[in-house]
């Protein structure tokens, strides 16, 4: 099963979604992964108080799917669901994705809490995904 990466706003709106390797829209499991990710948001709320780090490690699992999370200072959530990829790769991916998000947020034309449509951000995330997961 593919890996899905999402960015969720503090108000629980989906801002960005990427899948590695990219899959077609009709992929049945995509809905399932989205469902798993959103279901884990409640658990994330609790986990976030247990550590001082942005990176929260594995926060939830669903069958063989493991959900990893990273919460930024402005409580934007970066979530990733995978089936047993190396923890180290996930950690590095999320941290680098976070750096990309920070860069994106510094763009004066960036609107917080609006879906991320930037093509260059998308390309960079895809590159990052290729580097760690393919």
């Amino acid at each position: 099963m593919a890996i899905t990466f999402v960015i969720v706003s503090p108000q629980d709106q989906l801002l960005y979604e990427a899948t590695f390797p990219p899959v077609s829209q009709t992929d049945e499991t995509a809905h399932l992964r989205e469902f798993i990710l959103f279901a884990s948001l409640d658990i994330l709320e609790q986990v976030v108080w247990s550590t001082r780090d942005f990176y929260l490690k594995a926060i939830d699992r669903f069958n063989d799917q493991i959900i990893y999370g990273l919460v930024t200072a402005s409580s934007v959530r970066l979530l990733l669901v995978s089936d047993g990829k190396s923890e180290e790769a996930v950690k590095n991916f999320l941290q680098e994705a976070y750096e990309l998000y920070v860069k994106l947020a510094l763009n004066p034309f960036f609107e917080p809490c609006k879906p991320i449509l930037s093509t260059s951000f998308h390309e960079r995330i895809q590159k990052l995904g290729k580097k760690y997961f393919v």
Partner: protein
Amino acid sequence: MSSSRASTWNKLGDAAYAKSEKVSADLVALTYGSFVREIIKDFEEPDQVNKELEKLGYNIGIRLIEDFLAKSGISNCSSFEESAEIISRVAFKMFLGIRATVSNWNSEHNSCSIIFDENPLAEYVELPPEYTHSLFYSNLLCGVIRGALEMVQIIVECEFVKDQLRGDDTNEINIRFKEMLQEQVPWNDEE
């Protein structure tokens, strides 16, 4: 342009840069960014926004020239060519911390381009698709050059021809020499 003079100017630029007070590049980039956004909000039409940015730069330029001449150690320029070289080698270094190059002289030697690869104003910026073909994000710089030169009696027209934010390989500002203002003798009212 002799290379010894070019290197003297480079040194002057470095010295002026070393002496001047520094502020965080992020502060400048983000301030300018929110500034441009406000102007876009106010004027909406990208052409109008370009004009406003230029006007703003002009008002900076007519003041900045004093600071520049006082601190850079440049004495008078003998030609338009020299002025262009000094802008790119000394002024860009002094105020923006980057060095630009002058090229693309036309055959009449009254138009040239200032080219620079790095633009501290446009750090982090990604133009939304609706502006990539209309907005010149750093148009302020054109105004600064025009305003500064006007104060030393050189009338020019300035415009961006290439901008990395639009996907060009570099940033290029075209400067066209218009006229030299003559210092006017006060009108004699005794006759």
